[in-house]
Protein backbone atom coordinates (compact mmCIF):
# COMPACT_ATOMS: atom_id res chain seq x y z
CA UNK A 1 0.00 0.00 0.00
CA UNK A 2 1.22 3.47 -0.82
CA UNK A 3 1.34 5.13 2.56
CA UNK A 4 1.74 4.45 6.24
CA UNK A 5 0.27 1.34 7.81
CA UNK A 6 0.58 -1.15 10.63
CA UNK A 7 -0.59 -4.71 11.11
CA UNK A 8 -1.27 -6.80 14.20
CA UNK A 9 0.15 -4.22 16.59
CA UNK A 10 0.24 -4.97 20.29
CA UNK A 11 1.45 -2.81 23.13
CA UNK A 12 2.45 -4.00 26.60
CA UNK A 13 3.15 -1.52 29.36
CA UNK A 14 4.34 -2.67 32.78
CA UNK A 15 3.14 -6.24 32.18
CA UNK A 16 -0.33 -5.12 31.10
CA UNK A 17 -1.64 -5.49 27.60
CA UNK A 18 -2.87 -2.06 26.50
CA UNK A 19 -4.14 -3.14 23.09
CA UNK A 20 -3.59 -6.06 20.74
CA UNK A 21 -4.37 -7.05 17.18
CA UNK A 22 -4.59 -3.48 15.95
CA UNK A 23 -4.34 -2.64 12.24
CA UNK A 24 -4.26 0.82 10.71
CA UNK A 25 -3.60 2.37 7.34
CA UNK A 26 -3.26 5.94 6.14
CA UNK A 27 -2.90 6.78 2.46
CA UNK A 28 -1.38 10.02 1.12
CA UNK A 29 -3.76 12.88 1.82
CA UNK A 30 -5.52 10.77 4.42
CA UNK A 31 -6.21 11.30 8.09
CA UNK A 32 -6.66 8.92 10.97
CA UNK A 33 -8.20 9.91 14.27
CA UNK A 34 -7.57 7.84 17.39
CA UNK A 35 -10.29 7.93 20.00
CA UNK A 36 -10.93 6.08 23.21
CA UNK A 37 -11.20 6.70 26.93
CA UNK A 38 -8.22 7.86 29.00
CA UNK A 39 -5.65 5.12 29.37
CA UNK A 40 -6.87 3.18 26.35
CA UNK A 41 -3.50 3.52 24.62
CA UNK A 42 -3.88 6.46 22.21
CA UNK A 43 -0.55 7.96 23.22
CA UNK A 44 1.10 4.54 23.33
CA UNK A 45 -0.03 3.84 19.77
CA UNK A 46 1.30 7.19 18.58
CA UNK A 47 4.64 6.47 20.26
CA UNK A 48 4.78 3.12 18.46
CA UNK A 49 3.99 4.87 15.18
CA UNK A 50 6.72 7.45 15.79
CA UNK A 51 9.30 4.77 16.54
CA UNK A 52 9.93 5.99 20.09
CA UNK A 53 8.75 2.66 21.49
CA UNK A 54 8.76 -0.70 19.81
CA UNK A 55 5.58 -2.76 19.39
CA UNK A 56 5.38 -6.00 21.38
CA UNK A 57 3.97 -7.66 18.27
CA UNK A 58 3.17 -6.64 14.72
CA UNK A 59 4.97 -4.30 12.38
CA UNK A 60 4.74 -0.75 11.12
CA UNK A 61 5.21 -0.18 7.40
CA UNK A 62 6.10 2.79 5.24
CA UNK A 63 5.17 2.05 1.62
CA UNK A 64 5.10 -1.66 2.49
CA UNK A 65 8.64 -1.70 3.90
CA UNK A 66 9.02 -2.18 7.67
CA UNK A 67 10.23 1.07 9.22
CA UNK A 68 12.60 -0.91 11.47
CA UNK A 69 14.74 -1.65 8.39
CA UNK A 70 15.87 1.96 8.10
CA UNK A 71 14.62 3.90 11.13
CA UNK A 72 16.59 7.08 10.37
CA UNK A 73 15.04 7.43 6.90
CA UNK A 74 11.63 6.96 8.51
CA UNK A 75 12.36 9.51 11.27
CA UNK A 76 13.19 12.05 8.56
CA UNK A 77 9.63 11.74 7.21
CA UNK A 78 7.66 12.43 10.37
CA UNK A 79 6.75 15.10 12.85
CA UNK A 80 5.71 13.97 16.31
CA UNK A 81 3.93 16.18 18.81
CA UNK A 82 3.65 14.50 22.19
CA UNK A 83 1.60 15.61 25.14
CA UNK A 84 4.72 17.20 26.65
CA UNK A 85 5.73 20.42 24.96
CA UNK A 86 9.55 20.10 24.77
CA UNK A 87 9.87 23.86 25.23
CA UNK A 88 12.88 25.21 27.15
CA UNK A 89 11.77 28.10 29.39
CA UNK A 90 15.25 29.68 29.36
CA UNK A 91 15.29 30.09 25.57
CA UNK A 92 13.28 32.56 23.52
CA UNK A 93 10.37 31.45 21.35
CA UNK A 94 12.48 31.76 18.21
CA UNK A 95 15.46 29.91 19.73
CA UNK A 96 13.22 27.03 20.78
CA UNK A 97 11.78 26.68 17.31
CA UNK A 98 15.13 27.12 15.54
CA UNK A 99 16.64 24.34 17.63
CA UNK A 100 13.88 21.87 16.82
CA UNK A 101 13.94 22.82 13.15
CA UNK A 102 17.70 22.18 13.02
CA UNK A 103 17.12 18.60 14.22
CA UNK A 104 14.84 17.86 11.27
CA UNK A 105 15.76 17.73 7.59
CA UNK A 106 14.49 20.20 5.04
CA UNK A 107 14.66 23.97 4.72
CA UNK A 108 13.28 25.66 7.83
CA UNK A 109 10.84 28.56 7.67
CA UNK A 110 10.97 29.84 11.26
CA UNK A 111 9.27 33.20 10.76
CA UNK A 112 6.58 31.73 8.55
CA UNK A 113 5.78 29.07 11.13
CA UNK A 114 5.63 31.61 13.97
CA UNK A 115 3.37 33.77 11.83
CA UNK A 116 1.02 30.88 11.16
CA UNK A 117 0.58 30.03 14.86
CA UNK A 118 0.24 33.72 15.79
CA UNK A 119 3.46 33.99 17.84
CA UNK A 120 5.44 36.29 15.51
CA UNK A 121 5.03 39.24 17.88
CA UNK A 122 6.39 37.20 20.80
CA UNK A 123 9.34 35.66 18.94
CA UNK A 124 12.03 37.23 21.14
CA UNK A 125 10.31 36.64 24.45
CA UNK A 126 11.65 33.91 26.78
CA UNK A 127 9.40 30.88 26.52
CA UNK A 128 8.82 30.95 30.28
CA UNK A 129 6.60 34.00 29.75
CA UNK A 130 4.18 32.10 27.51
CA UNK A 131 0.80 30.88 28.68
CA UNK A 132 -0.13 27.21 28.40
CA UNK A 133 -1.97 27.79 25.12
CA UNK A 134 0.87 29.83 23.65
CA UNK A 135 3.36 27.12 24.64
CA UNK A 136 1.20 24.60 22.84
CA UNK A 137 1.13 26.83 19.78
CA UNK A 138 4.94 27.02 19.87
CA UNK A 139 4.99 23.21 19.95
CA UNK A 140 2.68 23.07 16.95
CA UNK A 141 4.86 25.62 15.10
CA UNK A 142 7.47 22.83 14.99
CA UNK A 143 5.43 20.83 12.48
CA UNK A 144 4.99 23.90 10.27
CA UNK A 145 8.65 24.97 10.35
CA UNK A 146 10.06 22.04 8.38
CA UNK A 147 8.30 19.86 5.81
CA UNK A 148 7.51 16.20 6.60
CA UNK A 149 4.88 14.00 4.97
CA UNK A 150 3.61 12.38 8.18
CA UNK A 151 2.28 14.24 11.21
CA UNK A 152 1.67 12.35 14.43
CA UNK A 153 -0.26 14.56 16.83
CA UNK A 154 -1.06 13.56 20.41
CA UNK A 155 -4.06 15.60 21.63
CA UNK A 156 -2.97 18.65 19.62
CA UNK A 157 -5.84 20.88 20.74
CA UNK A 158 -5.12 20.75 24.48
CA UNK A 159 -5.00 24.27 25.95
CA UNK A 160 -5.70 25.91 22.57
CA UNK A 161 -8.41 28.55 22.20
CA UNK A 162 -10.97 28.18 19.42
CA UNK A 163 -9.09 30.51 17.05
CA UNK A 164 -5.94 28.45 17.40
CA UNK A 165 -7.96 25.27 16.84
CA UNK A 166 -9.29 26.83 13.62
CA UNK A 167 -5.72 27.61 12.54
CA UNK A 168 -4.63 24.06 13.32
CA UNK A 169 -7.53 22.70 11.29
CA UNK A 170 -6.56 24.94 8.36
CA UNK A 171 -2.93 23.77 8.64
CA UNK A 172 -4.07 20.14 8.69
CA UNK A 173 -6.26 20.67 5.62
CA UNK A 174 -3.40 22.37 3.77
CA UNK A 175 -1.04 19.56 4.73
CA UNK A 176 -3.47 16.91 3.45
CA UNK A 177 -4.17 18.84 0.26
CA UNK A 178 -0.44 18.60 -0.43
CA UNK A 179 -0.52 14.82 -0.04
CA UNK A 180 0.50 14.75 3.62
CA UNK A 181 -0.76 12.22 6.16
CA UNK A 182 -2.08 12.84 9.65
CA UNK A 183 -2.63 10.64 12.65
CA UNK A 184 -4.11 12.48 15.61
CA UNK A 185 -5.39 11.31 18.96
CA UNK A 186 -8.16 13.32 20.49
CA UNK A 187 -10.95 13.35 23.04
CA UNK A 188 -12.84 16.18 21.36
CA UNK A 189 -14.08 16.29 17.76
CA UNK A 190 -11.29 17.80 15.64
CA UNK A 191 -13.52 18.39 12.65
CA UNK A 192 -11.11 16.83 10.18
CA UNK A 193 -12.97 15.99 6.96
CA UNK A 194 -13.53 12.33 6.05
CA UNK A 195 -11.02 11.04 8.58
CA UNK A 196 -10.87 7.34 9.39
CA UNK A 197 -11.33 6.59 13.08
CA UNK A 198 -9.86 3.91 15.31
CA UNK A 199 -11.53 3.42 18.67
CA UNK A 200 -8.83 2.08 20.98
CA UNK A 201 -11.44 0.76 23.40
CA UNK A 202 -12.42 -1.81 20.78
CA UNK A 203 -8.89 -3.22 20.81
CA UNK A 204 -8.54 -3.51 24.57
CA UNK A 205 -7.88 -7.06 25.75
CA UNK A 206 -10.73 -8.98 27.30
CA UNK A 207 -10.75 -8.72 31.08
CA UNK A 208 -8.88 -11.57 32.72
CA UNK A 209 -11.16 -14.59 32.73
CA UNK A 210 -9.90 -17.39 34.89
CA UNK A 211 -12.91 -19.63 34.53
CA UNK A 212 -15.01 -19.23 31.45
CA UNK A 213 -17.72 -21.51 32.82
CA UNK A 214 -18.67 -22.55 36.29
CA UNK A 215 -15.54 -23.39 38.29
CA UNK A 216 -15.09 -27.16 38.61
CA UNK A 217 -16.26 -28.46 41.90
CA UNK A 218 -13.00 -29.84 43.19
CA UNK A 219 -14.13 -30.09 46.77
CA UNK A 220 -16.97 -32.49 46.38
CA UNK A 221 -16.41 -36.18 47.08
CA UNK A 222 -18.80 -37.36 44.42
CA UNK A 223 -17.14 -39.22 41.58
CA UNK A 224 -17.05 -37.29 38.35
Amino acid at each position, binding site marked *: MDGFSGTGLACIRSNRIVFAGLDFAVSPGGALVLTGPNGSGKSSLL*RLMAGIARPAAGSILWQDAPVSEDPEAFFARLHYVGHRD*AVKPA*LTVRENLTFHA*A*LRPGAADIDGALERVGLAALADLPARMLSAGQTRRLTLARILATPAPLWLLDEPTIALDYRAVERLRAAIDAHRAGGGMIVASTNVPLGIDDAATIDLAAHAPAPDVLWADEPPDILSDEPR
Partner: protein
Amino acid sequence: MSGFFALVGRDIRIALRQFSDTMMVIVFFVIAAALFPFGVGPEPNLLARMAPGILWVTALLAAMLSFDRLFQNDYDDGTLELLVIAPQPLWMTALAKIVAHWLTTGLPLLVAAPVIGIMLNLEPRGYGVLIAAMALGTGIISLVGALGAALSLGSRRSGVLLSLLVLPLVIPVLIFGAGAVDAAIGGFAASQQLLVLGGLLIGCLAVCPWGCAVALRLAAE
Protein backbone atom coordinates in the same frame (compact mmCIF):
# COMPACT_ATOMS: atom_id res chain seq x y z
CA MET B 1 25.71 17.54 11.47
CA SER B 2 23.49 20.62 11.79
CA GLY B 3 21.65 18.82 14.58
CA PHE B 4 24.95 18.19 16.40
CA PHE B 5 25.94 21.86 16.46
CA ALA B 6 22.38 23.00 17.19
CA LEU B 7 22.34 20.77 20.27
CA VAL B 8 25.78 21.92 21.49
CA GLY B 9 24.79 25.54 20.92
CA ARG B 10 21.47 25.15 22.68
CA ASP B 11 23.01 23.50 25.76
CA ILE B 12 25.69 26.17 26.06
CA ARG B 13 23.06 28.89 25.68
CA ILE B 14 20.89 27.33 28.39
CA ALA B 15 23.95 26.99 30.64
CA LEU B 16 24.76 30.69 30.18
CA ARG B 17 21.14 31.75 30.81
CA GLN B 18 21.02 29.61 33.97
CA PHE B 19 24.40 30.81 35.09
CA SER B 20 23.90 30.06 38.78
CA ASP B 21 23.47 26.35 38.02
CA THR B 22 26.67 26.33 36.01
CA MET B 23 28.60 28.25 38.66
CA MET B 24 27.43 25.89 41.40
CA VAL B 25 29.92 23.26 40.25
CA ILE B 26 32.84 25.69 40.33
CA VAL B 27 31.81 27.18 43.67
CA PHE B 28 31.60 23.67 45.13
CA PHE B 29 35.06 22.90 43.72
CA VAL B 30 36.61 25.99 45.32
CA ILE B 31 34.85 25.59 48.67
CA ALA B 32 35.56 21.87 49.00
CA ALA B 33 39.26 22.41 48.22
CA ALA B 34 39.36 25.35 50.63
CA LEU B 35 38.14 23.11 53.47
CA PHE B 36 41.29 20.98 53.41
CA PRO B 37 43.63 23.55 54.99
CA PHE B 38 41.12 23.84 57.85
CA GLY B 39 40.94 20.08 58.26
CA VAL B 40 44.58 19.05 57.92
CA GLY B 41 46.15 22.28 59.16
CA PRO B 42 47.68 25.13 57.20
CA GLU B 43 51.21 23.72 57.06
CA PRO B 44 52.51 24.73 53.55
CA ASN B 45 54.66 21.64 52.93
CA LEU B 46 51.89 19.25 53.90
CA LEU B 47 49.40 21.08 51.63
CA ALA B 48 51.87 21.14 48.75
CA ARG B 49 52.36 17.39 49.16
CA MET B 50 48.59 16.76 49.15
CA ALA B 51 47.63 19.35 46.51
CA PRO B 52 47.47 17.06 43.44
CA GLY B 53 45.24 14.55 45.21
CA ILE B 54 42.97 17.23 46.71
CA LEU B 55 42.57 18.91 43.32
CA TRP B 56 41.59 15.73 41.55
CA VAL B 57 39.21 14.40 44.21
CA THR B 58 37.37 17.70 44.63
CA ALA B 59 37.17 18.28 40.85
CA LEU B 60 35.68 14.82 40.46
CA LEU B 61 33.10 15.37 43.21
CA ALA B 62 32.22 18.78 41.81
CA ALA B 63 31.67 17.30 38.36
CA MET B 64 29.34 14.69 39.90
CA LEU B 65 26.96 17.51 40.85
CA SER B 66 26.39 18.35 37.20
CA PHE B 67 25.43 14.94 35.85
CA ASP B 68 21.97 14.54 37.34
CA ARG B 69 20.64 17.37 35.17
CA LEU B 70 22.54 16.36 32.01
CA PHE B 71 19.67 14.37 30.48
CA GLN B 72 17.03 14.81 33.19
CA ASN B 73 15.60 18.12 31.91
CA ASP B 74 15.27 16.81 28.37
CA TYR B 75 13.71 13.64 29.73
CA ASP B 76 11.16 15.53 31.84
CA ASP B 77 9.97 18.00 29.18
CA GLY B 78 9.71 15.53 26.31
CA THR B 79 12.73 16.80 24.33
CA LEU B 80 14.43 13.42 24.72
CA GLU B 81 11.67 11.70 22.73
CA LEU B 82 12.30 14.14 19.90
CA LEU B 83 16.06 13.63 20.09
CA VAL B 84 15.55 9.87 19.87
CA ILE B 85 13.48 10.23 16.67
CA ALA B 86 15.71 12.88 15.12
CA PRO B 87 17.06 11.54 11.82
CA GLN B 88 20.69 11.48 12.93
CA PRO B 89 22.53 8.69 14.74
CA LEU B 90 21.65 8.78 18.42
CA TRP B 91 25.31 8.37 19.45
CA MET B 92 25.99 11.66 17.70
CA THR B 93 23.22 13.30 19.72
CA ALA B 94 24.74 11.83 22.89
CA LEU B 95 28.19 13.05 21.87
CA ALA B 96 26.79 16.56 21.34
CA LYS B 97 25.38 16.53 24.87
CA ILE B 98 28.76 15.32 26.19
CA VAL B 99 30.71 17.98 24.30
CA ALA B 100 28.37 20.66 25.62
CA HIS B 101 28.75 19.26 29.14
CA TRP B 102 32.54 19.39 28.90
CA LEU B 103 32.46 22.98 27.61
CA THR B 104 30.16 24.11 30.43
CA THR B 105 31.64 22.03 33.29
CA GLY B 106 35.00 20.50 32.37
CA LEU B 107 36.44 23.68 30.92
CA PRO B 108 35.53 25.90 33.92
CA LEU B 109 37.03 23.25 36.25
CA LEU B 110 40.18 23.34 34.13
CA VAL B 111 40.36 27.11 34.52
CA ALA B 112 39.70 27.02 38.26
CA ALA B 113 42.21 24.23 39.02
CA PRO B 114 45.43 26.32 38.80
CA VAL B 115 43.88 28.97 41.03
CA ILE B 116 43.16 26.37 43.68
CA GLY B 117 46.66 25.02 43.09
CA ILE B 118 48.07 28.37 44.19
CA MET B 119 45.84 28.30 47.27
CA LEU B 120 47.18 24.84 48.17
CA ASN B 121 50.81 25.85 47.58
CA LEU B 122 51.24 23.51 44.61
CA GLU B 123 54.84 23.43 43.33
CA PRO B 124 55.29 25.71 40.26
CA ARG B 125 56.69 22.78 38.29
CA GLY B 126 53.36 20.97 38.48
CA TYR B 127 51.06 23.49 36.75
CA GLY B 128 51.73 22.61 33.11
CA VAL B 129 51.16 18.92 33.70
CA LEU B 130 48.16 19.66 35.95
CA ILE B 131 46.41 21.51 33.12
CA ALA B 132 47.30 18.87 30.52
CA ALA B 133 46.17 16.02 32.78
CA MET B 134 42.99 17.87 33.76
CA ALA B 135 42.13 18.54 30.11
CA LEU B 136 42.28 14.81 29.40
CA GLY B 137 40.76 13.78 32.72
CA THR B 138 37.73 16.08 32.63
CA GLY B 139 36.97 14.74 29.14
CA ILE B 140 36.94 11.18 30.49
CA ILE B 141 34.80 12.27 33.45
CA SER B 142 32.26 13.91 31.10
CA LEU B 143 32.07 10.77 28.95
CA VAL B 144 31.75 8.27 31.80
CA GLY B 145 29.41 10.55 33.75
CA ALA B 146 27.12 10.94 30.75
CA LEU B 147 26.93 7.16 30.43
CA GLY B 148 26.01 6.91 34.11
CA ALA B 149 23.45 9.70 33.76
CA ALA B 150 21.84 8.00 30.77
CA LEU B 151 21.72 4.63 32.54
CA SER B 152 20.17 6.04 35.71
CA LEU B 153 17.64 8.17 33.80
CA GLY B 154 14.10 7.76 35.03
CA SER B 155 15.01 5.92 38.22
CA ARG B 156 14.18 7.32 41.62
CA ARG B 157 17.16 8.62 43.63
CA SER B 158 19.13 8.71 40.41
CA GLY B 159 21.73 10.97 42.05
CA VAL B 160 22.86 8.26 44.47
CA LEU B 161 22.75 5.59 41.78
CA LEU B 162 24.77 7.84 39.49
CA SER B 163 27.55 8.23 42.07
CA LEU B 164 27.64 4.47 42.66
CA LEU B 165 27.91 3.88 38.91
CA VAL B 166 30.38 6.56 37.95
CA LEU B 167 32.81 7.04 40.85
CA PRO B 168 34.31 3.52 40.73
CA LEU B 169 34.77 3.83 36.97
CA VAL B 170 36.80 7.03 37.17
CA ILE B 171 39.30 5.76 39.78
CA PRO B 172 41.93 5.27 37.01
CA VAL B 173 41.56 8.94 36.11
CA LEU B 174 42.26 9.82 39.73
CA ILE B 175 45.33 7.56 39.95
CA PHE B 176 46.96 8.66 36.72
CA GLY B 177 45.87 12.29 36.97
CA ALA B 178 47.28 12.80 40.45
CA GLY B 179 50.25 10.58 39.53
CA ALA B 180 51.12 12.80 36.58
CA VAL B 181 51.19 15.93 38.74
CA ASP B 182 53.19 14.13 41.45
CA ALA B 183 55.73 13.00 38.87
CA ALA B 184 56.12 16.52 37.49
CA ILE B 185 56.61 17.93 40.99
CA GLY B 186 59.20 15.27 41.73
CA GLY B 187 61.11 16.27 38.59
CA PHE B 188 60.23 13.20 36.53
CA ALA B 189 58.65 13.05 33.08
CA ALA B 190 54.85 12.75 33.31
CA SER B 191 54.44 11.52 29.75
CA GLN B 192 53.56 7.95 30.77
CA GLN B 193 50.64 8.99 32.94
CA LEU B 194 49.46 11.48 30.31
CA LEU B 195 49.61 8.81 27.62
CA VAL B 196 47.53 6.48 29.77
CA LEU B 197 44.98 9.27 30.30
CA GLY B 198 44.96 9.92 26.55
CA GLY B 199 44.38 6.25 25.89
CA LEU B 200 41.52 6.16 28.41
CA LEU B 201 39.99 9.21 26.75
CA ILE B 202 40.09 7.59 23.31
CA GLY B 203 38.66 4.36 24.71
CA CYS B 204 35.80 6.21 26.42
CA LEU B 205 35.20 8.27 23.28
CA ALA B 206 34.64 5.05 21.37
CA VAL B 207 32.38 3.35 23.92
CA CYS B 208 30.48 5.96 25.95
CA PRO B 209 28.46 7.82 23.24
CA TRP B 210 27.32 4.50 21.87
CA GLY B 211 26.40 3.21 25.34
CA CYS B 212 24.59 6.49 26.04
CA ALA B 213 22.58 6.08 22.85
CA VAL B 214 21.37 2.61 23.87
CA ALA B 215 20.48 3.80 27.36
CA LEU B 216 18.67 6.90 26.07
CA ARG B 217 16.59 4.85 23.65
CA LEU B 218 15.55 2.57 26.50
CA ALA B 219 14.77 5.51 28.76
CA ALA B 220 12.58 7.21 26.13
CA GLU B 221 10.60 4.03 25.50
